[in-house]
Each structure stands twice: as structure tokens, then as C-alpha cells.
């Protein structure tokens, strides 16, 4: 199993999912209750989702203004996690408090810091500006998968699987056939994998959204900010159409595919996905096509990963893998995840 890297930011939800209804999510095994304050700031609050009284999940309670009332016996918490009311008595025990998690809401995503709160640096949250920025239209969703989060990282770092698992939808023979380049930025914890196809068949995902008929120049540039954020910069144009020397690229279609890979518990991962485009931005038909097709593609991966995890679980220990050139990026990502997990291991755990 892939070790969880602590002391990192993780996407817990879309901003649109967090409002005046309590939302429960489990991140790196930690159950968390989310809500948005009613004051003008509308800030996202993230509290440990277990009441100090009898451990009832606070996400099953209700909001009273900006305080959270436990749904079992009414212990009431403010946004810092301090208990401010208990039923039937005036004295609130001094130790009555739940943890409040550092939160950043940015680019339409709600990020939560898992680890030592004092180490949380909001500037370290990686950006996905297209998700909320001008010039882009996005569709998005989230699917829980019953697999080790490392299997989802493997899946996304090696897109040659598009040819086989997603044949016709986003895969064509050229994807698996075209060599990749891989770059690892150690300090920043970023893995880049690029595959530039000069002359490729146009799969239905791009044919139906762009209207291109015939063959395409197709570039896939992956940027994986370990552990959570995965960006796939996709550029599609009729064969031979290249960006201008000054970098402008008016005749190509750009699609930003975003994933947030958030480990929920051992063997469970949240698969957040989004597709952003810079063309046909107000065309509802294109929106529908991209949402439906991408959901289909994501579910092909979800089904495969659920099957793969069950197969691995049923196997006796010592089953061997065999890596080939297509795995260069995935292997780099695994190694960075292992390093981050080691760095994030609490000192208390280290000495034990």
C-alpha cells in the first residue's frame, strides 16, 4: 500500500459543495466536517468530525449561525472547534474542543491541510487557475474509488492506457505508440510527462467537442504536483497547425484536464475530475458532450481500478510487476510520493 504523505494540502471538496449544509469527508483517514460561515466572508470551516462527548459524527448535526450543534446531545462548537455549550450545565469542560483544520479555498477547490497545523503554508497550495479563471468553461465531478491512491496516480501518469481502456473515446493507436519525455523537479515535487503526437486520429472526445474532422496534432503535457494535483494540458489542432513563434496559439483547441487525487482511507481514494475548455465556451451542447464523455471515461478508470485492487488483494504476497518505457513517469511519481510520506511521518511515529 502507498504510504500517505502527511503535512500536505489535499482537495477535500469543490467550493460549490460546501455551504450551509454540513458535508462529511474523510481525508488520509481523518473524518472532517465542512461548512461555510453565514457572515459576509462565507469562509469554509473544517472541524474534526467526531464529537468529544460520545464521538457522534458532527457532520450529522446542524448549524446554528456559525456554530455547529451535535445531532446527538447538543454539544455546540464554534468555528475554531472550541465547545461553547453543553446541555444542562453552565460549566463547559476545558478540554471540550475538536481540531480545526487549516483550509484554503482557491480556484474553486477547497484544500485542507493534513498534518501539523503550524506547518501549513497557504502559499504552497498548487494552482489550477483555469478552473475558475476568465476565458475557460469547466465541467467537473468526483467519484470515490475503492483502491490505493497510488493506483490512481499510476493510471494518470501513464496515458498509454487510453488506447486500450478508453479506445475510441479518448484513445487512439498513436497514444500508446508515441514516445514520452519525463522530467522530475525534485525540489518542487513535480513530475512532467509529455507526449506530442504530430499526426493522430481524432477520438470522439475531441471530434465531438471541437468539430474537427480528420487527423489532428495532439499534445499531452502532464504536470503532476505530488501528492494531490494533476494537470493535463491538452492541445488539439488540425494536423500541422502549430503555435505562433510568439507563443500565441489562436488556431488550436485547448483543454485543461484536472484531477485531484485525495487519499480517503487505506484502499479508498476520492477522484476529483474537471475538464476546462477555451472554445465554444457558451455552447451548452459542447458542455453536455464533454461532461458525459468525460464521466464515461472516468467510470472506465474507476471500474478498472476497483477490479485491479480486488485482484491485488486476492493475490498472495510477492506478486511481481514489470515496468517498461511507458512507466517512466509513473515510477518517478511513486518515488516522490515515498519521499513525501517519509518527510511527513510524525516524529512520534518515527521513534516508535
Amino acid at each position: 500500500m502507498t504510504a500517505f504523505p502527511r503535512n500536505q494540502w489535499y482537495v477535500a471538496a469543490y467550493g460549490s459543495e460546501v455551504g450551509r449544509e454540513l458535508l462529511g469527508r474523510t481525508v488520509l483517514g481523518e473524518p472532517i466536517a465542512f461548512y461555510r460561515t453565514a457572515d459576509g466572508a462565507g469562509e469554509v470551516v473544517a472541524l474534526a468530525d467526531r464529537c468529544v462527548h460520545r464521538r457522534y459524527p458532527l457532520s450529522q448535526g446542524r448549524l446554528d449561525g456559525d456554530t455547529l450543534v451535535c445531532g446527538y446531545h447538543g454539544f455546540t462548537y464554534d468555528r475554531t472547534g472550541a465547545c461553547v455549550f453543553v446541555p444542562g450545565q453552565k460549566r463547559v469542560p476545558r478540554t471540550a474542543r475538536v481540531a480545526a483544520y487549516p483550509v484554503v479555498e482557491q480556484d474553486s477547490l477547497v484544500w485542507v491541510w493534513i498534518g501539523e497545523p503550524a506547518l501549513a503554508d497557504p502559499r504552497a497550495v498548487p494552482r489550477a487557475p483555469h478552473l475558475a479563471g476568465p476565458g475557460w468553461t469547466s465541467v467537473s465531478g468526483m467519484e470515490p474509488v475503492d483502491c490505493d491512491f497510488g493506483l490512481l496516480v499510476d493510471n494518470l501518469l501513464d496515458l498509454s492506457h487510453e488506447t486500450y481502456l478508453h479506445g475510441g473515446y479518448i484513445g487512439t493507436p498513436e497514444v500508446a505508440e508515441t514516445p514520452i519525455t519525463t522530467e522530475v523537479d525534485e525540489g518542487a515535487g513535480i513530475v512532467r510527462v509529455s507526449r506530442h503526437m504530430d499526426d493522430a486520429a481524432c477520438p470522439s472526445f475531441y471530434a465531438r467537442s471541437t468539430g474537427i474532422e480528420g487527423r489532428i496534432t495532439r499534445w499531452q503535457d502532464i504536470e503532476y504536483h505530488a501528492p494531490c494535483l494533476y494537470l493535463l494540458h491538452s492541445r488539439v489542432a488540425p494536423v500541422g497547425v502549430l503555435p505562433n513563434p510568439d507563443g500565441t496559439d489562436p488556431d488550436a483547441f485547448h483543454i485543461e484536464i484536472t484531477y485531484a487525487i485525495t487519499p480517503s482511507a487505506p484502499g479508498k481514494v476520492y477522484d476529483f475530475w474537471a475538464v476546462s475548455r477555451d472554445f465554444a465556451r457558451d455552447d451548452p451542447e459542447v458542455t453536455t458532450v464533454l461532461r458525459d464523455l468525460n464521466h464515461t471515461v472516468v467510470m472506465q478508470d474507476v471500474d478498472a481500478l476497483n477490479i485491479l485492487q480486488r485482484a491485488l488483494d486476492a493475490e498472495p504476497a510477492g506478486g511481481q510487476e514489470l515496468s517498461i518505457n511507458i512507466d517512466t513517469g509513473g515510477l518517478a511519481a511513486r518515488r516522490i510520493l515515498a519521499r513525501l510520506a517519509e518527510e511527513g511521518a510524525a516524529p512520534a511515529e518515527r521513534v516508535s
Partner: protein
Amino acid sequence: MSGGPGTEVFRVDWLPGTDLLHGVCHCGAEHVAQDPVEMWRWMLAHPVGHTA
């Protein structure tokens, strides 16, 4: 996180038309391998065996 962005970049190119991988360490050393496991083993051994 240690270091800043761009401090240490490793690069591996799959040479078109071949099954070979060509690696370049941040120190400038180069290496050709047939298999990515071996490539990363060489790369991460830096500076051992990285005489350019």
C-alpha cells in the same frame, strides 16, 4: 519541501524510433538504458557514477 523549484531537474527522453531511454541528470551526466527501473536507479545514485 526541500530546495526551490527548478533546483534539481532530472530528464528522461524515450528516443523516437528506438526502445532506448536517454537520461540527463541535473549535474549534466548522461546515461542510456533499456528499462526505466534501471534508468531511475542510475539517476538517483547521483553523484555516484555521474562523471560527465
